[in-house]
């Protein structure tokens, strides 16, 4: 007796490896401005206790009182934007298998499982030097660490 089985799944946007890309890194909401405070005096109120960075009379977390007659821009520490060609992540999963019984007591089976994910989001830091410029200048060492993490592309630049 031969017993086959198969199934196909399609999942959109709920890819486990993608996570919630709009919340990463912390407070980097898309198109939002993130301020940086270097002298945090209290984690409970990180932007209201250090008078050298923030004025006491200002409405936290803003660094100044807004005046329509004298508008000022807030200096951001970071910016996150979406690419114009951003696409929704998707995941395709397929499996099939076959089982055959030999005699009364033996049944071997062969099964395949495939999981294909497409259009997963990727953060690009546009303020870092490009690999091409690093290779061309050759006097610069590739950046081995990016924000405390090892950068595997540095090895790629060395190999090239």
């Amino acid at each position, binding site marked *: 007796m031969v017993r086959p089985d198969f199934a196909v799944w399609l999942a959109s946007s709920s890819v486990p490896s993608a996570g919630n890309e709009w919340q990463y890194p912390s407070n980097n909401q898309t198109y939002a401005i993130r301020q940086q405070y270097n002298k945090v005096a209290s984690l409970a109120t990180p932007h209201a206790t250090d008078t050298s960075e923030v004025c006491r009379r200002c409405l936290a977390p803003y660094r100044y009182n807004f005046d329509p007659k004298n508008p000022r821009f807030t200096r951001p520490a970071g910016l996150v934007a979406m690419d114009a060609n951003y696409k929704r992540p998707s995941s395709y999963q397929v499996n099939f298998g076959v089982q055959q019984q030999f005699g009364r007591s033996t049944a*071997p089976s062969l099964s395949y499982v495939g999981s294909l994910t497409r259009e*997963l989001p990727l953060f690009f830091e546009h303020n870092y030097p490009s690999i091409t410029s690093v290779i061309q200048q050759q006097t610069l060492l590739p*950046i081995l660490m990016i924000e405390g993490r090892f950068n595997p592309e540095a090895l790629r630049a060395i190999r090239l």
Partner: protein
Amino acid sequence: LKTVYVIESGQTSNDNDLQVTLDQRMTKNISRQGFYTWSKTIWIAYMANNTFPERI
């Protein structure tokens, strides 16, 4: 600006698994099963604009 991140659709992953299983019934109440699984995953990150990516 300290950091300027742009979220792009730059990653792809392919996961392929193949499993061979053998079921054998030894007695009325006892059976045994053996299996071998071959698995391979390829993760691709596209280097758009030649900048360094940060995978999430």
